[in-house]
């Protein structure tokens, strides 16, 4: 009986750890469309057509989710994107 609450607590902690994070790129009127496409290809290894789709989504809708997954990797992607001077953030999946 006494161990039940502990298990529940651990489960919640694991769930919190496993919640994925989004890598979001935001629109920026200065960065060239061709440049943004190249960055998506380089950073995420996406083929050109997929990179262009995301670039257009950023351009037309103001943002695009480029990747979802573990927080550490998401942070690393955002760091790379900032290295290319793109406006990028991580967001916890709600």
């Amino acid at each position: 009986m006494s161990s039940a609450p502990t298990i529940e607590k651990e489960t919640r902690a694991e769930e919190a750890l496993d919640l994925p994070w989004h890598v979001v790129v935001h629109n920026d009127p200065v960065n060239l469309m061709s440049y943004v496409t190249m960055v998506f290809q380089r950073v995420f290894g996406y083929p050109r057509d997929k990179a262009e789709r995301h670039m257009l989504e950023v351009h037309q809708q103001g943002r695009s989710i480029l990747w979802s997954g573990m927080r550490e990797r998401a942070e690393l992607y955002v760091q790379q994107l900032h290295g290319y001077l793109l406006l990028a953030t991580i967001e916890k999946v709600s």
Partner: protein
Amino acid sequence: MEICRRKNQIEISELDPFLAELLRQIPASAKTEGAPAAEQRIFSPPVNGKETELCAEWKMYVEPELRRLFQTATQTVGADLEQLNGNEKSLASRTLRIPTKHADAWLCALNQARLVIATKNNFTELELNDHLRSPIGSRRDLSLFQVNFYGFLQEFILRELDC
């Protein structure tokens, strides 16, 4: 001005003094000192909202790395631009040769400069897309021309990298 790829170099020839001067200004234009909005844009936060712990860590560990990256790029570009210095005849056209291995540094420095100039001048998307605006009648017009000229160079370098 002519721009073309020759083996392992990008060659910008027939550079008149005005365009040569704009090129020389790339490293200086990329500097954010005294322009908090530009600094904020170049070193944007990794989250929207209140993740103060992550932002603090980012400032401490990531930002210095990004500063080094950006500085290295502008230094590389600055060294390439030394070809335009020296005892020039003031009205003579010049040629600049950029090794293709420096292409990434050029893309980075040009992008820094474009972002800093655009932020300092608070250019709107409409202005930035007005490529046919002329003539240059003010300091603001000149800055817009500079942003577009650097963008043109970026486009050319990107096309060459794609080949």
